[in-house]
């Protein structure tokens, strides 16, 4: 019993300390959030006033207000919403398909040392090959539709997930696996109860990397061919020397990537709730 009370005391001790440190927090002026927002305001002001002051023409660097005006024009006359939704849809779709394939293949290869050795040189080669360079090929094969950009995205998302899962499968604690075997678990039981949960942190890390790459895949697919999506607006705006349109499209692409990334971070904190988190 002594040990239990000790542990309870141990848990209440930091709790007793917490109010004191909380009390000092609002006093701190160096709050990173305020500093971050301050920096944003500073950059936006510089963007608005510096280019005209330095006589930089609009088609080189449009100001903030130019971009906002162009944004509402794009909304009204260029069907911006449709382009945005198309890009967002294919980003999520490509991410989902690519990471599913990557994870499944990663787990399969992780369970079979033989096939991992057979396939690893080719996987490495494909991983090194620049995936975006496949885009023109896919257009030749599938035409000017959504298929090429989906394929580029799937291809680009696939590898970080595969590699992370494979790496994690190789480093699962052997003693844990032995323990599970000693408890009469079969191959599948060991996978579902030990290996799969052990690799979750790495899978989630792979998915986070993949989410940022998914936007690149879709953009390249749309830049190279097609007539929908934010990538198309970039090449269209570029052709017309409409820098504000290009700026806006880039910003919106970033928004899509950001949203996907943070959705994943939210999922990750829920799934990996059992990991001790470093506070601040």
């Amino acid at each position, binding site marked *: 019993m002594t040990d239990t009370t000790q542990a309870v005391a141990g848990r209440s001790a930091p709790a007793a300390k917490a109010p004191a440190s909380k009390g000092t927090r609002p006093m701190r002026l160096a709050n990173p959030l305020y500093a971050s927002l301050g920096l944003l305001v500073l950059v936006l002001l510089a963007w608005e006033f510096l280019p005209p002051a330095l006589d930089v023409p609009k088609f080189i660097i449009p100001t903030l207000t130019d971009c906002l005006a162009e944004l509402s024009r794009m909304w009204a006359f260029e069907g911006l919403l449709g382009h945005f939704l198309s890009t967002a849809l294919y980003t999520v779709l490509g991410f989902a398909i690519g990471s599913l394939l990557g994870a499944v293949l990663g787990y399969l290869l992780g369970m079979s040392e033989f096939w991992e050795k057979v396939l690893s040189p080719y996987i490495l080669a494909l991983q090194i090959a620049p995936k975006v360079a496949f885009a023109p090929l896919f257009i030749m094969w599938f035409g000017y539709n959504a298929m090429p950009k989906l394929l580029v995205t799937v291809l680009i998302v696939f590898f970080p997930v595969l590699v992370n899962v494979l790496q994690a499968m190789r480093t699962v604690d052997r*003693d844990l696996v032995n323990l*599970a075997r000693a408890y009469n678990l079969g191959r599948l039981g060991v996978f579902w109860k030990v290996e799969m949960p052990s690799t979750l942190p790495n899978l989630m890390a792979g998915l986070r990397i993949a989410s940022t790459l998914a936007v690149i895949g879709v953009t390249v697919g749309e830049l190279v061919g097609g007539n929908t999506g934010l990538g198309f607006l970039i090449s269209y705006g570029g052709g017309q020397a409409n820098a504000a349109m290009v700026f806006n499209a880039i910003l919106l692409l970033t928004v899509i990537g950001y949203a996907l990334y943070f959705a994943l971070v939210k999922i990750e904190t829920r799934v990996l709730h059992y990991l001790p988190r470093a506070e601040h």
Partner: protein
Amino acid sequence: MALEFRNVTKKFTTNAGDRLTAVSDVSFRVDEGEFVSVVGPSGCGKSTILSMTAGLYQPSDGEVLVSDAAVTGPNAHVGFMLQKDLLLPWRSIISNIEFGLEARGVAKAERRARAMKELEHCQLAGFDSHYPYQLSGGMRQRAALARTLAIDPEIILLDEPFSALDAQTKLLLQNSFAGTIAKTGKTTLLITHDLVEAVLMSDRILVLSERPGTVVAEIKVDLPKRDRPIERRVMPEVSDYAAQLFKHLKLEEKAA
């Protein structure tokens, strides 16, 4: 008879291709409910003895018997615990304790009931829904013991379960393990390099020689309070037993 080694020899082939004899002609018996420790210099094959009892590998010569049946592979009679607690971090304490029962076709309700019982035996009541990272090292080892006890093994094998803990936690945990084991009446084999620990916790101590390990002495610890090492600790005889072990291990000669 809970456990018997009959003239057991184990040879390994090293990576370099040499033949290496880990233990040679080891014979001993452990009676039901007895607590026996195995001490010896490092590399004397203590863990080899444990692995052969657990059925992780077979002796090259001789026989290992658990409950009068030869051990041929991992089996339900033996529960083992290592220095690492090996709790699954993504499972709550209670479902970690249930882990060993899951592949044995025990119904869910009964699994939970048995796990709850062991949780209380190991003085962890109230921590069932905690996660391993929320527990101290000592409490995690107790949870690992609860998991081992939950499968109701005939023999518990402990491979230096206290060696990674600080001195005070170690003392408390030895006490708590000894109490729990005495209450359940389980036969226990403890592998340790801590001579005092062996004296405090055991009915009997087997001393192994250097490699190839063989039993050079068998010391009966004739002291009361096996279930309370903390009380046994202050008895003056403890240092005499430790000195005996010291002599058998020829530690003074080595120090000279």
